[in-house]
């Protein structure tokens, strides 16, 4: 018997004026699973994460987390309930130190935020050497890692990962993919938005391909690459059979 879904998204709709950024998206996610959201720019991937994480309200459908409808819950409340996210362009608290950035998250999330926990987290993500530095002094890869550390310090059960791999070099990509797999092995569910297919292939258990606010495919990434609709969306009509 498959485990009870941690997150259930059902016919989710989000409009910006007359534009339907999400047009009835449905999927679910179980603990320990890594689900990839892929699709061309403007297909609604980040909007989906923004709605689930409470940054945007929704215009239709439902989002259920651990059996409870979380519609209308503000982002800070969701962080405390166990949903957190990373940002495509991380904006850490630049003038605060790396440790302070993570401490703040730990105070406000579900984590205990004990010194040992935070030290462990910083060490696990190779940030311990920079703990006393201002976040503004880190390079972009380190700021992305800090963004992940900030999210993890809240002890989420569901982590929404928005283009974490963009801008990382191959060695950093491999390390980041391993980290995400390790989190999933620990029981955390991850929803990963990413354009790098190699990274998605390495990290995810299954993917949802989106186009124009709708899901057009759900399954293994390998199967998606043979799906005519997916090929049409990514490569154009000439390539689809």
């Amino acid at each position, binding site marked *: 018997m498959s485990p009870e879904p941690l997150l259930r998204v059902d016919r989710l709709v989000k409009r910006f004026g007359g534009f339907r950024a999400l047009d009835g998206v449905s999927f679910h996610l179980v603990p320990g699973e890594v689900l990839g959201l892929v699709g061309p720019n403007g297909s609604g991937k980040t909007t989906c994460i923004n709605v689930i*994480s*409470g*940054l945007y309200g929704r215009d239709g459908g439902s989002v259920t987390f651990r059996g409870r409808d979380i519609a209308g819950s*503000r*982002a*800070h409340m969701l*962080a*405390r309930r166990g949903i*957190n*996210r990373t*940002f495509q362009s*991380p*904006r*850490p*608290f*630049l*003038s*605060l130190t790396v440790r*302070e950035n993570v*401490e*703040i*998250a730990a*105070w*406000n*999330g579900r984590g205990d935020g004990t010194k040992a926990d935070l030290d462990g987290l910083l060490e696990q993500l190779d940030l311990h050497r920079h703990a006393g530095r201002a976040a*503004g002094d880190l390079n972009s890869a380190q700021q992305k890692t800090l963004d992940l550390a*900030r*999210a993890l310090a*809240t002890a989420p059960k569901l982590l929404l990962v928005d283009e974490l791999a963009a801008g990382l070099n191959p060695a950093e990509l491999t390390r980041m993919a391993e980290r995400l797999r390790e989190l999933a092995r620990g029981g955390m569910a991850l929803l990963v938005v990413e354009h790098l297919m190699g990274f998605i292939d390495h990290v995810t258990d299954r993917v949802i391909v989106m186009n124009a606010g709708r899901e057009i495919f759900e399954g293994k990434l390998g199967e998606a690459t043979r799906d005519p609709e997916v090929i049409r969306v990514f490569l154009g009509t000439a390539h689809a059979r």
Partner: protein
Amino acid sequence: MLLHAALSGLVFGFYFTLVGLGLNLVFGVMRIVNLAHGDFLMLGAYSAFWLFGLYHLHPLLSAACVLVVFTLVGLPLYYLVVPRLLAARDSEMLSLILFFGLQQMIEAVTSIAFGTTERSIPGRVLGSGPVRLLGQALPTSWVFSAGVSLAAVALVYVYLYQTRLGMLTRAVMVSREEAVATGIDLHRVCAIAFGLGLGLAGIAGVFAPFMLGSVTPAIGPEINIAAFAVIVVGTLGNPLGTVLGGIVYGVSLMLMQTYLSSWANLLPNLLLIAVLLVRPTGLLGRRVRRA
């Protein structure tokens, strides 16, 4: 004469730091402009006037009362007004319009309730005789007011840099979106900062009769211009940069009053124009604007 002007300017600078501090704290945290700031200062002055007139309450005690009461008044006022502004696309512009309306209302109601007569409190209440500093004699009430101002700045420093709530406040100053995603209750942090901003304006008001001579219900806009000059010079959005802005403003004001007295009233506008043209990020620059 130059030394006296410089010392007086320093004392006034500390006071004007307090005048601008609350406005800058509110802007730094919420990115909204409280145009009613000067009127809350005026209400603080009226509170001190009546508390002294009715109960002979020492201004220092009045300042403590005003800090508590104004901060508490700020909390519901925040929830009534500001969350809607923050949700708007152009919250800075909307805040100008909304708080301009509030400013007009406060001024009108105060004028109707208490009249437009100038109100003052005798300077001797804060101590008689001058204080001698580097051989120069300064009124005790000025030095006392400057001391309270410095204590208020220290209070804000401790709040921002030594408390957990202060760290959350600094986090909100850097990035509202990231702060929310981190789990920070944005409105709780903003409401406290807004209340504290009004409380600081109230304390500045308590000492306004001593530093400005007298107050009327119409003093708000004039105070606002001075406060804007102070915080723009000292870097908009950086509460502690206000200290530098206050000192520059105070010393310039006293030098102008000493050597070019008929031009002194132009100073706030001149400073504003000069800084916006030459260094629009303020004297401390963009780096510290990130809090």
